[in-house]
């Protein structure tokens, strides 16, 4: 692992594992949320607001968002490395991806802890 190149590939076992773990976290959250929606009554504003007012729901949603950001970083980086060959373009797209993920996370925190 010495010859690492900043725009290189083929040493992503950590990323690979992180993508799988975050996938499982998001899958569990998705199924729980889905079951709550399917079994519940029609959703009114009160029900919706109270759901996201609970501490555990805020934390669970934040964990989902962080998992999504991490998972998407690995996935989008894979796509960029496959199709964007010039180093400058690759770097620019990776920076944009990071900024988008950071913006998503900031927005999520803002929504959850208003």
């Amino acid at each position, binding site marked *: 692992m010495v010859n690492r190149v900043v725009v290189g590939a083929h040493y992503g076992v950590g990323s690979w594992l992180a993508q799988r773990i975050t996938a499982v976290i998001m899958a569990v959250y998705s199924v729980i949320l889905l079951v709550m929606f399917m079994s519940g009554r029609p959703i009114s*504003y009160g029900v919706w607001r109270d759901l996201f007012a609970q501490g555990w729901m805020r934390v669970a949603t934040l964990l989902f968002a962080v998992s999504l950001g991490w998972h998407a970083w690995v996935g989008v980086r894979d796509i960029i490395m496959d199709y964007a060959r010039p180093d400058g373009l690759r770097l620019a797209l990776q920076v944009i991806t990071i900024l*988008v993920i950071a913006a*998503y996370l900031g927005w999520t925190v*803002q929504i959850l802890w*208003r």
Partner: protein
Amino acid sequence: MSSAAAKKPRPKYLSLFALLFEIRLPAPAWVSGLHRISGALLFFPFVAWLLYLLDTSLASEQGFAHVHDHYLKLPLAKIGLLIFIWAYAHHFCAGIRFLLLDLNKGIALPQARMTSYMVFAASLLLTAFFGWRLW
């Protein structure tokens, strides 16, 4: 030299047209390709769109009513929601298949093909079900 004309040029770069219309990709390749496409779509624009919807619907009762009673009743929004549901369902089902493949489950070709068709069927059924629930 006589076989020069018969020799295929290598490497062969496949155009999108060739991938779609000239060669028949096996089912696992479609699962993989659509997993990538659905993942890219979920990252952008769908995360941004869902955050907008969550933001608006949680901000105030008027915001919730706007999203619930007007915005999501628009045909374009419903089509967007349907595409989102398919992308999520496919990414979810194909992702579980990949997790199982990582654990060396379903590696043999017949099983790999069968689970590919199961992913297509499951994601389309989920899309149909939730689409019907939403309409």
